[in-house]
């Protein structure tokens, strides 16, 4: 059965671009345009992976969503790939090794996301 990926991003064009790439690789893709509906959708469809944008309505909405996901006993096992362009805006760089202690996500990917990078990250997290 195809793996399900949920994309939570407020930019519909980015969602569509990522959807195209992932669907071409045989994944089933769902999407949500904000944190709240993203959480609701995750609850409903129980995806195998969540791709989460950091900056949506607020600078850190993505983080809030990530904390809620990891706080839920049913959802906390779902790996989260965080897409971020926060580095270019605030000069803050993520270090997955150090930051995973306080950031509840499995991997980071820089925006604009290169298709090859996206696929590699998704495959790694899903073990496919």
């Amino acid at each position, binding site marked *: 059965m195809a793996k399900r990926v949920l994309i939570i991003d407020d930019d519909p064009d980015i969602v*569509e*671009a990522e959807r195209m790439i992932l669907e071409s690789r045989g994944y089933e893709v769902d999407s949500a345009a904000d944190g709240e509906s993203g959480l609701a959708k995750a609850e409903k469809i129980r995806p195998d992976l969540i791709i989460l944008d950091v900056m949506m309505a607020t600078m850190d909405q993505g983080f809030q969503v990530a904390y809620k996901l990891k706080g839920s006993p049913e959802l906390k096992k779902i790996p989260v790939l965080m897409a971020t*362009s926060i580095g*270019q805006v605030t000069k803050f760089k993520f270090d997955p090794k150090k930051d995973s202690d306080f950031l509840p996500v499995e991997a980071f990917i820089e925006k604009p996301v290169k298709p090859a990078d996206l696929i590699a990250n998704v495959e790694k997290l899903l073990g496919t």
Partner: protein
Amino acid sequence: MLVPDTERGITEHLLPRSAELTERVAWFIRLRWVAVAGILLAVPAGTRLLGFAEMAAGRILALAACLFALNCAYVLAARLLHNRVRSDGTPDLRTVDLFAKTQIVLDLLILTAILHYSGGVQNPFSFFYIFHVVIASILLSRRSAYAVAALCVALFGSMVLLEELGSLPRYPIAPQTADYSPGYVATVVAATASTLFIAVFMATSIMARLRQKEDELEHAWRAVKQLEATKSRFLRLVSHEMRSPIVAIQSILDAVRVTGGQCLGEKNSEMLTRAGERAESLLHLTKDLLTLSRQQSLDPGHEQLGTVEMLEVTRNCVGLFRAQADERGVVVNEEYPAAAFSVRGDAESLGLVVSNLLSNAIRYTPAGGTVSISWRLDKPFAVLTVADTGIGIPEADMKHMFKEFFRAENARRFTGSGTGLGLAITRNIVERAGGTIAVESRENAGTTFTVTLPVAA
């Protein structure tokens, strides 16, 4: 042709009134040492050379000692005042004002006493009152300046009057004409008084004009600063808002190119790649704009500064560009001093100086050329030189090299990419670190950038 970069943004603050007053008070104190020395020389000259046997040399010397002691106290007080500044770094205007007034009043008392002991109305040095009056007109308010003039006249007038009435003894320096008619004495006092008041009137009128101009200047300066801040904010906003659509465009182009596969065809796929590259360079532009506006909006004093080991930074940069240079067939030579050294500044920014100059040198040097990067110590400075054998800069373009968005005509022809912001950013960083940047170039022969930075102790 060597073009030192002289264009600067307006960053210096105008001198606040209290700081100006403090500076003048320091000047006052220095002048007073000269006055003490002058008295010490004048007394023996008067008694020995000029034969002013009747002047009270001992008392005058005692007054000079008094003035000396007072001036020592002023030095201490000035230091104390300097240490007790307000939160904005300037001393309190009222305190400094009071300090200056105290000095003027005490000086006038001493001057009057010295005049008294050295001939009174006979002594032409009574004109020295005018110095205090002029200084008061420049430094203090108009009202205070008139008050100082009135005090001078009162002191001089009462001394002369008391001598005339015989209440004070006379110490004549011209004993043969020791007795003046009351009319003559009154004329001297009147002449002194009118001179002093006219001096105040003239000096304060000129000062009022000057202060008005100064205020206008300050006003204009503030307006420029405001405008500058608005521009920076606007730039930041625009580049920030531009990012998301560009990222979306790039993502879509990539998605179409990657998933389109064979149905796209080679030509279409290539065009999509090109479009992606254009979007990429636009993204670089927004990034550079953000850097630039962030620099402009930062107050120099508010940066987080540390000491940066420059050789380490430089070696890292060269390492990052090695692959690019190899790919382009450009040789990179390095030459560093044996000892490590540091520069005060922000590590990331100073790294940007090296990487911007290096990436330009590599980018504008055709295959087979050489880029030489070197540091040399010339205490208290460290000098970075980045020289290439590249396309060079046309002479007409030299003076624009550090301007935002400027790209030399031959550089545009040589490569399409490039924002014209790199050197502007570099210059900003260098100047913030207290350094200078200069460029030397000959078209089709090569370019040399020289950055001079103060070495951290």
